């Protein structure tokens, strides 16, 4: 599965468009990470726990998108975008979407 965030796959041609695929995750902070984050709010610096959480949920969203693309018989996803929205205090959604295509 080839994933790009440009409109084409370099060196290949798109032979079929299969439409939009998407994947999302909602993540929230938890108590253990909150404790460290509270300390970091005083001293400043990177919140490693949150970075990990963000990376994991991004990968999860992409995986869900790819699973959907695979299910409809695509071999590449182009024009991928990430989008975020806050659902409630302390929780946020990470949303990945793109166009499923067949390339040759």
């Amino acid at each position: 599965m080839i994933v790009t965030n440009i409109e084409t796959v370099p060196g290949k041609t798109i032979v079929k468009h299969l439409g939009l695929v998407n994947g999302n995750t909602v993540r929230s902070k938890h108590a253990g990470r909150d404790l460290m984050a509270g300390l970091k709010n005083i001293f400043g610096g990177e919140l490693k726990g949150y970075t990990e959480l963000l990376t994991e949920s991004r990968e999860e969203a992409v995986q869900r998108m790819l699973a959907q693309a695979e299910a409809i018989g695509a071999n590449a996803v182009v024009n991928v975008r990430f989008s975020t929205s806050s659902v409630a205090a302390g929780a946020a959604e990470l949303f990945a979407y793109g166009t499923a295509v067949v390339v040759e």
Partner: protein
Amino acid sequence: MYDLIFFLVLLGCGYVFGQLAEKRHFRSIIAREAELQDLLCFSERTVPAAYSGDAALVCGSVVISIDYFKRFVAGLRNFIGGRVSSYESLLERARREAMLRMKEEARARGASSVWNVRLETASISKDNDQTIGAVEVVAYGTAVTPR
């Protein structure tokens, strides 16, 4: 009285450790940027034939928090208005760090250039008392590895 002492201690800790952490972070950013200088990033959406190769999505993300002292200064700034330099440096650090992590992932794949680089910011650490506190940045693009 004790409250005031506690507040001043927090302020002092924030100032000392925050400044140290920020300086160290900027030094590491500059060093790594110099190392990855030959890996080119573009915000264009089409890849010219000269750069053609295997494409893959690369991402980098980071969450950075501001220290107590700077948050206090930013709070004061809100009364007067104008540039809030404490948040400016926070955002700059976060964006540059996210870009670097994306470039590191691209380098690990042996890519020579990254196309259509985009930056996305979000916030989960926003509390009910509406202080910004921390910023999250995701940088992503298409890494092209020459065949």
